[in-house]
C-alpha cells in the first residue's frame, strides 16, 4: 500500500510557500520538505491537525491511498 501526500497541490492552490507553511505549523523546512516529497514514514496527528488548520482542508484532501506506490513500500529494504 502507499499513502501519497498532496501538499504540493494544496500549497499551490492556497498560494503558500514552504517556509511560511513550515513556520505556521511549527515544523522545520527540512521536515516539511520530507512530507511534501513523500519521504516521511509516518505523520503525527498533531502535524496533520496543524496542516489541516493552516491549509483549511480535511485530512482526506492531504492524504491519498494509491495501491503499490509511495510511503511504506521500502519498509523492509534491508
Amino acid at each position: 500500500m502507499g499513502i501519497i501526500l498532496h501538499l504540493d497541490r494544496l500549497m499551490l492552490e492556497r498560494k503558500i510557500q514552504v517556509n511560511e507553511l513550515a513556520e505556521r505549523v511549527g515544523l522545520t523546512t527540512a521536515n516539511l520538505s520530507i512530507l511534501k516529497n513523500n519521504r516521511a514514514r509516518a505523520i503525527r496527528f498533531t502535524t496533520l491537525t496543524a496542516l489541516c488548520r493552516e491549509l483549511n482542508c480535511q485530512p482526506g484532501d492531504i492524504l491519498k491511498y494509491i495501491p503499490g506506490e509511495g510511503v511504506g513500500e521500502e519498509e523492509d529494504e534491508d
Partner: protein
Amino acid sequence: MKYLGDKSISSWLEVALRASWIFGIVATSSMVIAVIGLAIAGDSVIPPQFQSGLAINSGGLKISIDAQYINPLHRPVFLSLLLAGAALGGIALVIIRNLQLLFATFAANNPFCPENYKRLRKIGWVILIWSFVEVASEASLGVLLHKMSTLPGLHITTNLIPNLSTILMAALCFVLAEVFHMAIKLKRDNEFTI
C-alpha cells in the same frame, strides 16, 4: 560512569582496539614474512636458536618441554605452524577491526547505524570460523607435540569438538545483530515521523 560518547568506556575501548589492530597487523605480517622466508630457505632443519625447547600456551595453561626432550623441528612442520598462526592472526584481525569500528560508533553516540548490523553479523561468522580453525590447529598441535616429544609416557589427546563458549559467543553476536537491526528500523521510522 559513562558508557557511550566522548571520553567514555566505549571511546577508551576503541583506542585499545585500534592499538591491538595495529599490533595485530605487525604480528601477522611478521608471521607471513617468516612463512615466505622459510619457504624459500634452503635448510630442512630449523636453526638451533629456534629450538630452545617447546612451549605451548592455552588460556592460562602453559606447557614447556626442554630442548633435550624434543626431536629436531623440520621446516615443513615449522612452516605449517607459522601458517596456522598467520591464519588465526588474520581471523583475529577481522574481529578486532570490526569491533573497533563498532566501538567508534558507540563513542560517536551513533550506535544504531546500518553498518553495525553488518559488522555484528560479520563478527559472528568470523567467530564461528575461528571455533573450527581452533579445533583444527589444536588437533595438529597435538599430533606435532606427539611426534616431536621424546618424553616417555606422554599421552596427548585432542577432541574434535569446537569450544562451546566460542559458539555461544557467535550466537550472541547474531542475536545482538538482529536486536541492532530492529533498533535501526525503529530509529529510521522515528526519524521520518513528522
